[in-house]
């Protein structure tokens, strides 16, 4: 299948003006959502995913718990307006179940589930907008949400999609490119350099695989830097807030509009 839109032009630019290995803009918002223990919103280009984490907590159904470790329960919902043509997917949609199973199996070896026997960790994923690289965005947001919830992890999980256009590899595909070129998603643990997920729904020549795989692993390291910076920023803000509360002399000056007397 080929479209009229040039995936990669002679100047080495892609349809949205990026270079071959260029990733899209990533914005991370780790602010609290409702009563959730941890949450993260990732805006990756035009793909936007919100993940909230509850737990570890007692499971609603006791029968589903395991005696020696915690169970990861991933539920995903896709907003009907997230795609070009409106389509309402129910919670039992095959595609959604498959994606959530994939995310659960990605995180099972990463989360230290043995620390919480007989409990459950709920991961709720909302897809608000999608423009390619949906699975990587979900995985990255889940990592960050688990971290903000304080769930012990062995390492970050950083995911990215890669594709091959004739012989040139591309990273971080949009919907347009995903429809056109063979692609795969790779999730890596950047510190231990392990891989927790490699998935592909299209066919790729075996000789191209190695190159693409190595590139995707390298891109995972770059995304890790971005995610680490966001976590660090939030932690610094939290530690600052603790300090301001504990020391009597220091007053938190951020957007205070009412100044009480000098007694503080």
């Amino acid at each position, binding site marked *: 299948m080929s479209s009229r839109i040039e995936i990669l032009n002679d100047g080495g630019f892609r349809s949205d003006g990026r270079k071959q290995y260029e990733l899209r803009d990533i914005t991370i918002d780790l*602010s*609290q*959502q*409702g*009563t*959730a223990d941890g*949450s993260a919103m990732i805006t990756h280009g*035009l793909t936007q995913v*919100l993940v*909230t984490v*509850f737990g570890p907590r007692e499971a*609603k159904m006791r029968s589903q718990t395991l005696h020696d470790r915690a169970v990861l329960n991933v*539920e995903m*919902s896709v*907003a*009907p*307006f*997230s*795609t*070009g*043509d*409106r389509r*309402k997917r129910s*919670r039992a949609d095959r595609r959604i179940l498959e994606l959530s199973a994939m995310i659960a199996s990605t995180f099972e070896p990463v989360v230290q589930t043995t620390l919480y026997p007989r409990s459950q960790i*709920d991961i*709720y994923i*909302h897809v*608000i*907008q999608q423009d390619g690289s949906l699975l990587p965005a979900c995985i990255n947001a889940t990592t960050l949400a688990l971290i903000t919830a304080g769930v012990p992890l062995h390492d970050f999980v950083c995911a990215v999609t890669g594709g091959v256009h004739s012989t040139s590899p591309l990273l971080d595909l949009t919907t347009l490119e995903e429809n056109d070129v063979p692609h795969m998603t790779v999730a890596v643990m950047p510190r231990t350099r392990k891989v927790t997920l490699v998935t592909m729904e299209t066919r790729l020549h075996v000789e191209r695989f190695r190159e693409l795989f190595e590139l995707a692993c390298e891109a995972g390291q770059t995304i890790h830097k971005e995610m680490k910076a966001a976590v660090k920023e939030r932690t610094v803000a939290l530690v600052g807030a603790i300090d301001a509360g504990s020391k009597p002399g220091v007053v938190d000056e*951020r*957007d205070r509009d009412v100044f009480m007397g000098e007694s503080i």
Partner: protein
Amino acid sequence: MAAVLLSKSERAYIQSSLKATPPLRADGRGLLDFRTVLLETGVAPLANGSARLNIGKMAREGGGGTEIVAAAKLEVEDVESGDGVDGGRVACSVTCSPAAYPHLSSNALDELQHDLSVILQQTIGHPSLHPRNLTIIPRKKSWLLNLDAVVLADAGNVVDALFMAARAALWDAKVPRTRAVQYRAPEALKSAKNDVPGAMDVDEGTSGFDTRDMARTAADFELPDYWDEGETLDGREKWPVCVTLNLLTPRHFLDATPAEEASVPQRLHLMFSFVPSAPPTLQAMRLLGPEELDLKDLKESIAFGEQYAKELFTALETKLREEDNRRNIKARDRFALMR
């Protein structure tokens, strides 16, 4: 609506503090005060109109509050095949995130979603509010207006938030301009054919380009290329706002938190539509709760509700016009400069 677990003593405590003089609320608000409402339109680039609304976000933490994303999306429907209705139709749906209701099972969540969808559909989809510009080609093609709302977090007062978000998304919605396309035979050919009936029996064949015998009505439509995304929905001032009166006789209060919602015996949802230069209309009303209400009290509550709804409407209208200005008028000016 969400059954928050609340002990009897907690409930009694909340009730007695609401009944005290002066009344007290946990967050220090007065009975008729709303929490901060934040609104942004145009949040979903793939929808025709969208809005994100938050009630009660905490300024310091950057989180919390009831959060709703609503989006209006248009779809073409074929009237002749029986899918669509002539003049277009409006379909509303509400999805609740399990994260907003962590204590509910998935079945209970489905029921809640359905309840909210029905309230929204019956009010917004009412014929008296139907926009007139949803027709593309009369009796052939029409727009289906899908309004989808997602409740991302519930910190009380979901119905009011839902209607505000719906109003904002519908206000923001743009119907793409369409131009009807019709097949028409050249006049000369037609007259020649009519003047000499049966003079010469020419085998015309069945060329695909021969459109002379086709009906001369609009057959299809095209989308003209223009700088904006289309015109706004007709009668967008009419979309209703909802106020929820939490009744704790003889008092009532607005914008309840989940704990307050769980401790009042009755709630009254009132949906008002304010059309400029016409008296306000009560579009819908729902009375929830196990107790009954006197007719006299009900009339009084509606009168109060109208007053609060008017205030809410005015505030929302101001914000929507501001957003309009930010997103549309400035964009147009920029476009004019570029040319």
